[in-house]
């Protein structure tokens, strides 16, 4: 079945170092109400709801079921959850709409990293036999990748600092961002990565609404049509991979149709400066492409939501007429282990 499906609304919280005064559902609810308000839809009008989150972040078991309170899930709704970034929840919702089972979908995700030691929490997603017992934290693994890029001559520390500076400068126009404007590049966290090369740790949530065909045109003046979405994964052992490249991103982009025509905008989920270098190479982005006008994950990286936010930011630029064809990328796991690419287009103007 060939249905046209679009992102018709996007909302996100202001991302902050801590949201301790709010429970997860209290943090999430305003963005749900925001996207419903933008479209005039009520919960009962939504055909499918899909969310992404991880209980490990805040150490709270079954938090995603409590978050459902914010949706208004009674009488029972058609609903699903992925223990992944919300970009993968969007993928599930997109396939649901493709089947024709639903015409609209609400996708949301949230992450509260502030209650726990995020760098250590993320080690629990690693190979439990050979890697997790060593507790290599998320910055350490990204630093191994950065050093590999430096050794290969793909980048150097000043170039990485420039990625950081450009991202936070762009984020001055993004009121939701956590780090905006000039930020000191700082000391080494794990060499060669400095504080400025790393994303801020923070809490936040995001939501989008998808709609199919005419429904999308009725709900949004300029829908961001999803021309393709695909996601691919690398071998799980870091030592098997070439860390300077991302064949999974390239393959996902190819399957999503990203290389059929040039894009004008790319929202890349590169939490570390060095990962933008890898992604630009894998996606063959030239200097004509506007990369991360939102500031990207270096400006706000609410884990589990930051990938969905890339899709939302790309879609919002299409909605506003600032982009005609945009690429959105989301990642999961260490050193860009798993990658999702979506291509969004606006109707000709």
């Amino acid at each position, binding site marked *: 079945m060939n249905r046209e499906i679009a992102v018709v609304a996007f909302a996100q919280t202001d991302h902050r170092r801590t949201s301790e005064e709010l429970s997860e559902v209290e943090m999430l609810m305003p963005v*749900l109400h925001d996207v419903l308000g933008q479209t005039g839809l009520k919960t009962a009008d939504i055909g499918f709801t899909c969310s992404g989150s991880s209980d490990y972040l805040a150490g709270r078991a079954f938090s995603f079921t409590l978050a459902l309170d914010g949706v208004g899930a009674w009488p029972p709704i058609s609903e699903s959850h992925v223990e992944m970034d919300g970009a993968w929840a969007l993928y599930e919702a997109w396939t649901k709409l493709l089947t024709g089972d639903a015409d609209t979908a609400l996708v949301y995700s949230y992450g509260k990293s502030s209650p726990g030691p995020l760098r250590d929490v993320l080690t629990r997603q690693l190979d439990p036999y050979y890697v997790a017992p060593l507790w290599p934290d998320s910055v350490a693994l990204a630093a191994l990748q950065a050093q590999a890029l430096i050794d290969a001559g793909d980048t150097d520390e000043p170039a990485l600092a420039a990625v950081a500076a450009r991202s936070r400068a762009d984020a001055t126009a993004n009121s939701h961002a956590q780090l905006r404007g000039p930020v000191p590049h700082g000391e080494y966290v794990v*060499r060669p990565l400095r504080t400025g090369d790393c994303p801020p740790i923070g809490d936040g949530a995001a939501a989008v609404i998808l709609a199919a065909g005419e429904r999308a045109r009725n709900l949004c003046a300029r829908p961001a049509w999803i021309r393709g979405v695909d996601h691919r994964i690398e071998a799980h052992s870091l*030592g098997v991979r070439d860390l300077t490249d991302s064949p999974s991103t390239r393959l996902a982009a190819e399957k999503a149709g990203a290389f059929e025509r040039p894009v004008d905008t790319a929202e890349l989920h590169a939490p570390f400066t060095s990962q933008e270098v890898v992604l630009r190479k894998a996606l063959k982005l030239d200097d004509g492409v506007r990369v991360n006008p939102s500031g990207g994950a270096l400006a706000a990286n609410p884990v589990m939501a930051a990938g969905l936010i890339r899709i939302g930011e790309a879609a919002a630029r299409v909605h506003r007429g600032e982009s005609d064809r945009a690429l959105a990328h989301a990642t999961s796991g260490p050193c860009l282990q798993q990658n999702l690419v979506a291509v969004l287009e606006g109707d000709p103007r």
Partner: protein
Amino acid sequence: MPEVLKAPLVVEFPFTRSLGPVQSAFLTGLRERLVLGVRTSDGRTLVPPVEYDPVTAEEIRDLVEVAPTGTVTTWAWNHAPRRDQPLDTPFAWALVRLDGADTALLHALDAPGPDAVHTGMRVRVRWAGERTGAITDIACFEPYDDGPDAPDGRGRAEPATHTGEFDDPVTGIVATARLDYTYSPGRAQTAYINALAEHRNVGERCPSCRKVYVPPRGACPTCGLATSEQVEVGPGGTVTTFCIVNIKAKNLDIEVPYVYAHIALDGAGLALHGRIGGIPYDQVRMGLRVEPVWTEGARYPDHYRPTGEPDADYDTYRELL
């Protein structure tokens, strides 16, 4: 708004994991101070070895012994080791391709400082004194001077096949994990817990359907709206349903059998749960009227006991079951 509540929360678990034949041979080998790899059908040697080829997904079982020496393929200097990491003094994380292997193993590299580490440097395994059959049987790598650096690192030793058979093979690992959080329950539950410490049950009312949630979670799950209007309910309530607990829980100082019940506090839109005391367990019934019993200094009721009022009529709590 009063200060939000916070408390330390420790999440700790000992994961018990079984091993496949290749993982078992590799980890048993480490215990015996030798490093095994696995051969793929196209002739590559993977270290650490896996059960399935990462490219073809083919089952792979042909083991070889590689050298305990190798070459750093990338590294990162960790000046501030974290709690459970392999060394407690500054060290380098390194991917090391052992001689005879085609892939690299992640571990710590003990070196005096970042200036002493570079990609292509030669290193060797430093074995842990006590070995159990785990990746931590490799204590770390250490610098090893065996002549000029070999960027490739291969060709120094041709790996010999190995049966993978050992006396007393390791068949599983117990991987302990502990994460320390600072938990905050958020606005609505903070207000509830603070009021409870003053022996008051304060719920929140949904602005749309008017239902009062106790304890409040900040949202009405029916309407998907934020609750904020605070409403004091109870202290009395009605047992809507109950069960008799016959098995003594670990670390719980309550004699069995006892009754655990759903209790609809007067004015609440749903039932909460609590233990029923002050009445023989086999006399507890639906509709029993109860009230909370507080112990000295407690922040929440110890249990609920009968008030002596006549039982509530079924129709008064049928919607709250």
